[in-house]
């Protein structure tokens, strides 16, 4: 699984640390780190929570064109 650089960039644009985002969505910092590194495939529920916390859509953060 590829790194999710869009998530990392969106988080940085909102000036949030991994810990801030983790607290906002109710998971651990390591889980956010694993998602950004592409080591963990989050559930749709968590994806939506992250999108809402960062003010982005699912497509903007998680859609991968090469999966089409």
């Amino acid at each position, binding site marked *: 699984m590829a790194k999710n650089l869009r998530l990392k960039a969106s988080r*940085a644009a909102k000036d949030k*640390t*991994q*810990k801030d985002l983790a607290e*906002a*969505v*109710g*998971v*651990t*910092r*390591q*889980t956010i*780190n*694993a998602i950004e590194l592409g080591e*963990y495939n*989050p*559930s749709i*529920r*968590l994806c*939506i*929570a992250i999108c*809402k*916390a960062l003010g982005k859509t699912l497509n903007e953060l998680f859609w991968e064109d090469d999966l089409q």
Partner: protein
Amino acid sequence: MKIEKEKYDERQLQIRGEIFKHGFLTACALMLFNAFLQGEGIGWANGFHQNILMFIFASTVISVEFHLRDVYFGKGGRRITSISIFGFCSVLLLVLSVFHGVQGEKFVADHRLTDNGFHIVGGIMFFANTICALVQLFREKQAERTIK
């Protein structure tokens, strides 16, 4: 939208499930090995100590893996308090065992663990758990500082 009903998040629950499987397999392997030893007439401790040590060993495998994969503590777990209590108990157990050893109590007699031997082996397992928790705490603090 915040997901916080459970103590552990979804990734942690998934990993904990894998680790419990490893612990279960370890316990099964230990029981089979112990049954084989008993069948051959080889005893390494009294029956009570054998069972407790096998249980503690399987629990230690689970705990150590929990620590190393960072799923021991859930969201907002009190790491330092838990590690301090665990560390204090393990050191106390080890110090008491060594103290009794110095006073002349044997750790092994007739190729079997004595009460004191049982305490020191248990203490070593608890201590290994504490060390892994400390290592993980250090790694986590470092990661919090470096990852932006």
